[in-house]
């Protein structure tokens, strides 16, 4: 699904990713953990195609196709979805209007007509039920005045609507209480299939109790310094990151 080879990226002369290798197959859930400032969110942004980051070396392939030259929206059209750590507010644009625009722009890129209104409403109803979203929520302005939990739930709702091939969840657990965490995780679990893949970026092991990863990678100083199964996450939770730093330093 996603294959990253020797990826180097920098911003404003500052090197952040220093040779990332990652191979995520369809049907898999990968987690990337690591201390603050290790480059986790940068990796998410670079995969999504954020322009501030300069990729100097290496390549990113989605389903065998090199996506280096694609714009952010083209990557989105190909099925990359990024659930933001800090989703932005867009006053006056309702959740419904936003997701409708998003879905139809994606369809248009694929040469499809706009989704008929009736079908759209049905889909919205289905997906909002899946994520236990109150219908009133959908007519509010996007993320404006949303609680932390509502913002994240809204991200997962959009993910459910767009049905991406690769979903990157950037610190989705931050700012969530335990109930919200459960709802969000359940949503992700329901959306998982053999045809898509999930990349979870997280600082803590907590979310991984709910969304169980097939592989866990530790990112430190711009490199993946350790990979393992979900047991690695428990080990990190218990021992912290210092031993990783020391190992990496050696």
């Amino acid at each position: 699904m996603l294959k990253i080879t020797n990826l180097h990226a920098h911003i404003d002369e500052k090197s952040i990713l220093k040779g990332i290798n990652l191979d995520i197959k369809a049907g898999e859930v990968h987690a990337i953990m690591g201390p603050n400032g290790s480059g986790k969110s940068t990796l998410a942004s670079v995969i999504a195609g954020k322009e501030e980051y300069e990729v100097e070396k290496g390549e990113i392939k989605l389903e065998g196709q090199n996506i280096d030259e694609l714009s952010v929206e083209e990557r989105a059209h190909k099925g990359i979805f990024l659930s933001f750590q800090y989703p932005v507010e867009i006053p006056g644009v309702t959740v419904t209007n936003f997701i409708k625009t998003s879905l139809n722009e994606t369809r248009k890129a694929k040469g499809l007509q706009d989704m008929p209104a009736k079908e759209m409403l049905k889909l919205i109803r289905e997906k909002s039920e899946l994520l236990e979203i109150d219908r009133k929520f959908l007519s509010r302005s996007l993320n404006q005045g949303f609680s932390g939990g509502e913002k994240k739930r809204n991200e997962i709702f959009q993910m459910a609507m767009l049905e991406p091939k690769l979903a990157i969840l950037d610190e989705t657990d931050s700012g969530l209480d335990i109930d919200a965490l459960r709802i969000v995780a359940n949503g992700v679990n329901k959306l998982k299939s053999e045809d898509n893949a999930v990349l979870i970026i997280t600082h803590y092991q907590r979310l991984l109790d709910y969304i169980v990863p097939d592989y866990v990678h530790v990112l430190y100083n711009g490199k993946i310094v350790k990979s393992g199964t979900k047991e690695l996450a428990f080990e990190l939770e218990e021992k912290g990151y210092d031993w990783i730093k020391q190992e990496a330093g050696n």
Partner: protein
Amino acid sequence: MNKYTEDDLREELKTKEYEYGFYTELDSETFPVGLNESIVKAISKKKEEPDWMTEWRLEAFRIWKEMDEPNWANVKYKKPDFQSIAYYSAPKTADPNKTLDDVDPDLLAMYKKLGISIDEQKKMNNVAMDIVVDSVSVATTFKKTLSEKGIIFMSISEAIKEHPELVKKYIGTVVPTTDNYYSALNSAVFSDGSFCYIPKGVRCPMELSTYFRINQAGTGQFERTLLIADEGSYVSYLEGCTAPSRDENQLHAAVVELIAQENAEIKYSTVQNWYPGDKNGKGGVYNFVTKRGLCEKNAKISWTQVETGSAVTWKYPSCILKGDNSVGEFYSIAVTNNFQQADTGTKMVHLGKNTKSTIISKGISAGKSQNSYRGLVQISSRADNARNFSQCDSLLMGNDCGAHTFPYIEAKNKTAQIEHEATTSKIGEDQIFYCNQRGIETEKAIALIVNGFSKDVLNKLPMEFAVEAQKLLEISLEGSVG
């Protein structure tokens, strides 16, 4: 216009230049440049006006001569040379007695380019139009349907001849000739415009609409609109403006007077996209307009404007809330891009008791433009329990534009309640990235954000205008980010 889709918009966005920048060759009859008493007399004579009108114009001219052009607005421009403007230009083919079939095919072609073909308009829904090309009203439709209700809707030139008693009674009562420099000038030289009278208790069954257009090079356009809603009547009036691309600045100084008698309601909506000048700030229309409405007891006047055009805009649609319980509203979206400058807002003058006013102003600035809101809320000593709510929001795009807010409040009555809210925000790269990530390309993302920002005002526009307004917002801001 109704079937306008997003694909059409995309096509339009590809053409960055002003879309109405064509020029139709019409054999025009233009007066020599300059302004003096004989030009004023000649205009009046050309229009076969009665003596009282000629006198009224001359009086205005004398007042104007003694006045100075105002310079308090937050705009910088080269003052027009009023002696190098031709004050009258009429397409030669215009003849009020002709039917539509006789209209010059070139003219009709021009309407078609503007998307306002008359034959379509005739068939299409509830819009009656009085079209002003340069100075003379060429065609009025729907007259018959309206006249059955006793509604008078015609060019002001016709009204001066056919209903002199009404014109004489009301003209200059809301915007006196002495009001300001441009209104005095307009009173002296106005060429044409619309006149509308809604009789007592009549609810106008359709939206009334006028399209203005500047065609002849180097001519100023001075329309005069007079709209009277008699007791208990209702009317919704739409005004749209376009001007072809021209290098020299063109002056546009209109006067609009609204009179809402007891229990009457007037809704006046404007979509203005006069030529804003090119990307380098060359050319464009100077839009110096005086719009004011008078509300008698229990009356209501609602101004809604979407201003996307003109190089320089100086415009403050206002309400005089004279009668008790009268209501004034002002909803505005002003967009400036490139080198455009807009100084626009409203005046709400509360004279009667329990009068209420609402001001919602949305300013969007991009490029190197300057966008100012200027508003006055005035509560007189007699206006017990007057209320005002004002909200002024500014949206900035890029780092080279400016947004300014000048709210003036004068309250002389202790019972007044005045609220003012203001926000300034910027379209952020993070917002754009977010939209991009959801598959929405940048231009579309900006349109979405701007439409969201303007929603409170767009919602106030009649349906058929809202679509056009959204389209204009998108076109005006094309290429402003990234």
